[in-house]
């Protein structure tokens, strides 16, 4: 399975990288990290253009983020409105939304690369809760630049060990994403509120 996938990189070049990063931003199970690592490795070997690989990965990711945001805005917004009318869920939704909006740029930025498994969901939630598009886009463009440079760069530097790098990277990503979610959920549960009815929280 992995071999078939890796063989597609020299065949389709930058296109497969673009497709992989695009769909991975929509929460589809795409091995985009491995494909970016492979593209970096093939670029190091002189088989692919480094600029084309980075550009394709970046373009796919940025357009994927915008698509996820648009899907969230279209499909998710009515659901958020419905949940806000439900007494039990409303408070949590409002607090989560207020927090996301207060730290919109940094949340989007960090979930592109440091907590990358959370990225696609932040796209949907950002669109659904009407996170200002400009904030979303600034976080997306800067964060995807880091993500793409990191993975293609690691592939370039460790061309002979991409399978090992991919394994370590996926575990680090899982660890950090789960840790970030635990901290965030812990905050939602345990942090005391001052103005719960305004969606405001103690600073």
């Amino acid at each position, binding site marked *: 399975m992995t*071999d*078939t996938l*890796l*063989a597609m*990189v*020299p*065949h389709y*070049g930058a296109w497969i990288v673009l497709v992989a990063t695009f769909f991975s931003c929509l929460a589809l199970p795409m091995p985009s990290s491995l494909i970016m690592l492979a593209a970096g*490795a*093939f670029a*190091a*070997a*002189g*088989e692919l253009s480094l600029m084309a690989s980075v550009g394709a990965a970046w373009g796919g990711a940025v357009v994927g983020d915008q698509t996820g945001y648009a899907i969230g805005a279209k499909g998710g917004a009515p659901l958020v409105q419905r949940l806000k009318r439900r007494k039990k869920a409303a408070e*949590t939704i409002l607090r989560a939304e207020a927090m996301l909006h207060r730290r919109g740029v940094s949340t989007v930025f960090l979930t592109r690369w440091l907590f990358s498994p959370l990225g696609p969901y932040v796209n949907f939630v950002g669109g659904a809760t009407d996170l200002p598009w400009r904030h979303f886009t600034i976080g997306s463009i800067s964060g995807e630049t880091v993500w793409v440079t990191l993975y293609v760069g690691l592939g370039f530097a460790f*061309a*002979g*060990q991409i399978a*090992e790098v991919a*394994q*370590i990277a996926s*575990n*680090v990503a*899982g*660890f950090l994403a*789960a*840790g970030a*979610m*635990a901290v965030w*959920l*812990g905050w*939602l*549960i*345990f942090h005391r509120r001052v103005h719960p009815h305004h969606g405001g929280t103690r600073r």
Partner: protein
Amino acid sequence: MPRRLKDRMQDKPLLAGAFALTVLFCLFFGAKLVLIALHHPPRPTDPPIANWMTPGYVAHTWHVPKEMMLEVVGPRPGERRETLDEVAERLGITTPELIARIETAIADYRATHPEAAPE
């Protein structure tokens, strides 16, 4: 657990469940990372040659000239990049046979070019 914290967990069972799950996931990935760090074999100098690699990729990762690889695999017919599977098919041999040929050629090259041998 302090009483107030317990109350809050009971107050929001769904969030508390998700919280516990993420803590478990965090521990799971953390444990896997520790295991990788403890049991990871020392990095091999030469990565095993696999069917998805291209001749250029093998040359790069084994630190041998591309010209040497070209002598084994022959010039590629078109512009399209070939994987070792495709090279083997073009030469009418199996991929393991091709890999064995490449390994022999690299060993020969290193024997005559000591500076190309891995440290």
